[in-house]
């Protein structure tokens, strides 16, 4: 029997509208009166005809690159937003471990926030009373429980957020990347708690970039890309497809950045692409393969010795950063000149996961003046083999195990 039904769901976001001011609204109203309708060209389809069902006690994984629609699915299931078309039904009490601590107020104490956040997550007061000690224990807060949360460290904040969420008693649980935060010990505790939910027969939907977690927890997995289901079924197969088999497919390639509506900058990044060792454009790599980051740019004024930088990041965390300033690369560009700056990694020593690249051009290494910079200019995935190890980086290594003979 299906606990979650998701039937041919489509969700469109209107880009560049909403969140306006009256100054924008008044011409818009006139436009409507005169008869200029909405232009539907500005619709972004975050989900485009997605269907699936989740049975009682099943754990469904959602994987795919950023912007694939994973989070949109969670938001639709939790009713935060509504579908443009299609049918969604969820049976039973639903709780979401989506944003931890979203309901905290900095001026209230940990105790007050536990009650408030509990209520937001749908707990009754008696339930919170009953679970209060457990929550405080789980969050490892100790004496800080009566301190305003604005004095908490970010670790404490996150722990408290998860602790409250982890003590709800839902029939359906949505989990989004909660384990990306917190220290190692706490992560283990969270995974343990999620396992308990699973053993208790709860139905779960998990979004994660963490391959191990999906592997361990999910009975079935959906691989999404650009709002559509690429594959739905066996977890291992979905992961394999996503991490390796999808090289050079339709995953978004180098973003075309020419139409960005920014003011004229002295230097402007026009395109960022990733290439493999043979100079082919790609967005998925295998551990220890060569990778080239190409920054295409144009000068709009005369510039001497600009500094280029490029960073590999996981989410917002920088894993590696490099700049031309350290290589003593000089150059002069006149208005209208175009060029390419290239970083070549001979061996991409990253393991399984999804990464993105942040690039920029500055006047000089120490200057705060940035000509242009693009936050997640391009993203890519890396696939690795088990014998290369786990976690984030690949450090070439081997194992030896032998008995030490006793005297």
């Amino acid at each position: 029997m299906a606990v979650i039904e998701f039937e041919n769901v489509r969700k469109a976001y209107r880009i560049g509208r909403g969140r306006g001011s009256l100054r924008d609204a008044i011409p818009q109203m006139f436009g409507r009166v005169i008869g200029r309708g909405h232009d539907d060209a500005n619709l972004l389809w975050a989900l485009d005809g997605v269907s699936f069902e989740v049975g009682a006690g099943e754990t469904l994984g959602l994987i795919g690159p950023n912007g694939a629609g994973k989070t949109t699915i969670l938001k639709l299931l939790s009713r935060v937003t509504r579908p443009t078309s299609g049918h969604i039904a969820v049976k039973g009490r639903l709780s979401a471990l989506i944003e931890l601590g979203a309901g905290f107020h900095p001026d209230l104490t940990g105790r007050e926030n536990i009650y408030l956040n509990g209520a937001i997550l749908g707990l009754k007061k008696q339930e919170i009373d009953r679970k209060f000690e457990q929550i405080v224990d789980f969050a490892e807060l100790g004496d800080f429980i009566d301190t305003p949360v604005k004095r908490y460290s970010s670790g404490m904040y996150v722990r408290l957020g998860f602790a409250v969420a982890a003590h709800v008693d839902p029939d359906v649980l949505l989990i989004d990347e909660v384990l990306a935060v917190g220290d190692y010990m706490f992560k283990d505790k969270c995974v343990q708690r999620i396992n308990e939910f699973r053993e208790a027969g709860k139905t779960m939907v998990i979004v994660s970039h963490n391959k191990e977690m999906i592997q361990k927890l999910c009975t079935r997995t959906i691989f999404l890309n650009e709002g559509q289901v690429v594959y739905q079924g066996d977890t291992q197969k979905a992961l394999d497809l996503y991490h390796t088999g999808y090289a050079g497919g339709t995953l978004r390639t180098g973003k075309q950045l020419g139409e960005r509506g920014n003011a004229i900058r002295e230097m402007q990044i026009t395109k960022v692409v990733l290439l493999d060792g043979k100079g082919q454009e790609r967005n998925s790599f295998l551990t220890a393969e060569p990778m080239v980051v190409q920054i295409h740019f144009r000068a709009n004024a005369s510039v001497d010795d600009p500094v280029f930088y490029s960073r590999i990041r996981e989410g917002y965390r920088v894993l590696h950063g490099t700049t031309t300033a350290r290589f003593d690369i000089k150059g002069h560009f006149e208005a209208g000149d175009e060029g390419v700056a290239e970083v070549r990694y001979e061996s991409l020593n990253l393991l399984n996961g999804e990464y993105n690249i942040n690039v920029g051009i500055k006047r000089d290494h120490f200057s705060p003046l940035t000509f242009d910079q693009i936050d997640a200019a391009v993203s890519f995935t890396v696939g690795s083999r088990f014998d290369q190890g786990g976690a984030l980086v690949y450090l070439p290594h081997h194992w030896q195990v032998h008995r030490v003979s006793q005297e």
Partner: protein
Amino acid sequence: MTSNLKELFRYRELLWSWVVRDIKVRYKQSLLGIAWAILQPLSATIIFTVVFSRFVRVPTGGIPYPIFYYSALLPWTFSSSSITFGVSCLVNNMGLVTKIYFPREILPISAVVASFVDFLIAAVIYAGMMVFYQVPVGPSWVWMPVLLLIQVILTLGVVLFASALNVFYRDIRFVVPLGMQLWMYLTPIIYPLSMVPERFRGLYLLNPMAGLIDSYRRIILQAQWPDLAGVSVAAVISLGIFILAYIYFKRAEAVFADII
């Protein structure tokens, strides 16, 4: 509408927690704490008393100036602070609205309830004034809960509408203080209703706040029954505003998370 109210009832515990939060936060953040609730209507009363008894003489029909002004400013401050605080209640909690589902009207409702607590605190001063000026408690006071109920409905309607609109157009919250000022002048607060020319009276009383404020003064200070026609018009218009605003709010709610 009934299904919305049912849903709201299911979330009553959250509504209560949120009200408590709003009240706690308000008094924790301010230096003077509870004194603020009193200071606002009281300081306006003092200014109005000085200006309109010394510089410009407003006829109050023999009612002492301080109590004449406080009797109008006390309920007026409840509505005006509900609206000024409430207009950004959705935008201020965007982190929640975009992440977790709950009936969104909980936020504007608790903004109004928190202001109502301020109102009750400030009413203590009013009680003191009535003892001082020896205002008798009469049978006309039975109208008080009715008037308050109408005022709460009206205020809630305006807050629901303004807070939803503020999600789409962020400058609404700058328009609100201006609007409140205009509204105050269109309401018999500084002057008594009797100063409004007879031929404009009908039009004037379309402002539901006018009928309400005038009635508060009548039942408390003059021991008279309120003008039934005025109160009925105020009740009908307030209820109308509330229902339309609630319908608009629930319709807009569907896209809040996509815009904020």
